[in-house]
């Protein structure tokens, strides 16, 4: 290497020195207030009440836990009213000495009253527009309570309540009496012309000091129009094919039969009859018998299994039809009937006013049940 090249190399190395200054705006982890849950409620006038749950890591360590007189909760809750969610989060910065970090937010709880006065699409705009806000955060709707009261509660089962919701959603078995939805999918459904949004309902049981996540809130556009009970939510899961590990009990002539590992698949075929869509819904269910309270003794025979299957099919057909009719009455297309029509009959879809057509659309449901395991011979 000659002298000229050495000089060039030295200049290059000096150039790299500017990258050695490191991260100048970093904040230590104890200086960050990690928001785990955001609650949105209806505020006074046209304002919103925003609450955030922040974990206090030092209180999670038993030896460092609170002494008498100090709040012993593992988290702190701060809230404020403002015109928008973003403004509220900015104001909340003044209520904590730490830096408010929403990158790790796991869930968003919205009070049911919000839907009476505010447009939900506007409310969640900041949480989907801001690149720092996680799109996977789960949406919950508060039933008969405010989001703030839900966040204030201290359930006995969990160290940090905000994480409790997420852990539930990560369990396949829980996709049964409610169905979890991330905020991006929730917003997608809100603005989609061929779908309507749904979100799980959450409430707090003060006697048992625990959260109850059961049922669904259903929407018509951006309006909250009704609720599905936990049982109706199971039927919703069967029609949409989202139930993969469910459990249901049926009262049959043989006795009380409980099915476990209930898995459903559905196929929707749309025929145009007399210029109107007619929905033929075929549902295939496979499940195991996990409990059988018989009215008479006797061994299980193949004939009996078939009888049970046929009876369950009959019961389900009636109950599933009731749920579809209820949703039609609410004009909430959470079953994606519109989307199926858009895909299968594009030309018809372009001509139709779906929201006017949906409540009176005709359908037929066929259910096929297959029991894989009976668990016992009797």
């Amino acid at each position, binding site marked *: 290497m000659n002298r000229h090249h050495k000089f060039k190399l030295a200049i290059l190395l000096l150039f790299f020195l500017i990258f050695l200054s490191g991260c100048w705006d970093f904040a230590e982890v104890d200086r960050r207030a990690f928001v785990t849950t955001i609650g949105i409620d209806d505020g006074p006038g046209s304002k919103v009440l925003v609450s955030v749950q922040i974990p206090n890591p030092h209180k999670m360590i038993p030896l460092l836990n609170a002494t008498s007189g100090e709040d012993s909760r593992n988290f702190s809750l701060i809230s404020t009213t403002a015109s928008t969610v973003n403004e509220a989060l900015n104001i909340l910065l003044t209520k904590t000495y730490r830096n408010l970090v929403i990158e790790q937010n796991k869930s968003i709880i919205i009070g049911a009253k919000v839907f009476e006065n505010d447009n939900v699409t506007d409310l969640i705009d900041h949480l989907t527009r801001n690149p720092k806000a996680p*799109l*996977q955060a789960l949406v919950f709707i508060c039933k008969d309570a405010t989001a703030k009261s839900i966040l204030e509660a201290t359930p006995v089962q969990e160290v940090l309540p905000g994480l409790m919701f997420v852990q539930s959603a*990560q369990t396949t078995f829980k996709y049964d009496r409610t169905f979890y939805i*991330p905020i*991006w999918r929730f917003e*997608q459904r809100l*603005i989609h*012309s061929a779908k309507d949004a749904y979100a799980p309902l959450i409430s707090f049981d003060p006697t048992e000091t625990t959260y109850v996540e059961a049922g669904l809130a259903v929407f018509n556009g951006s309006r909250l129009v009704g609720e599905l009970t936990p049982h109706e939510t199971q039927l919703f899961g069967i029609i949409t094919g989202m139930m993969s590990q469910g459990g249901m009990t049926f009262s049959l002539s043989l006795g009380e039969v409980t099915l476990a590992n209930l898995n459903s698949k559905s196929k929707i075929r749309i025929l145009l009859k007399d210029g109107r869509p007619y929905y033929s819904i075929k549902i295939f269910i496979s499940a195991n018998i996990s409990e059988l309270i018989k009215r008479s003794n006797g061994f299980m025979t193949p004939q009996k299994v078939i009888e049970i299957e046929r009876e369950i099919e009959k019961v389900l057909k009636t109950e599933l039809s009731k749920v579809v009719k209820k949703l039609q009455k609410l004009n909430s297309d959470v079953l994606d009937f519109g989307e199926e029509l858009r895909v299968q009959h594009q030309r018809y879809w372009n001509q139709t006013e779906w929201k006017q057509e949906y409540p009176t659309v005709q359908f037929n449901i066929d259910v096929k049940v297959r029991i894989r395991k009976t668990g016992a011979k009797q």
Partner: protein
Amino acid sequence: MSVLIMLLFLLEIIGGIGVFGSEYVQKFIWPNLALIKCINIPYLVLEQIGPVFLIVWITVFIVGGGFYMYIVANGLQQLFPRLNYKLLVLTLLVIVGIGGLIFPNAVLVGYLFEMIRRFSIIPAIGYPVLIYIIAVIRGKGRKNS
């Protein structure tokens, strides 16, 4: 290489529309990044693959960008043999750098691309036609009698 990049872009576009739907996908300035952000991997340290994707994305982007720079610089040098290839690449780098910084926001970039897209067929067809016309005028490409 170019075909592979185009194929990956196509897959990404199909994936973006497939996941978000035609209506929702229009909300995002970078739908592919939003798509990656939606992927949730519970229990893994990061719980998301966004940072991993960004590393791959930037690598692919730089390699792809470098490839296009080579094509343009090589083409220009063939047209104008007097140009210095190395200096040409550096000049292109400055042009691309200024192009990337000059626009204040992505909305304007999207708007401009929307306008340019309508006329992009003109150089695609016009350039070979122009070369042919020049060749005819200069009498190039004919067999010597």
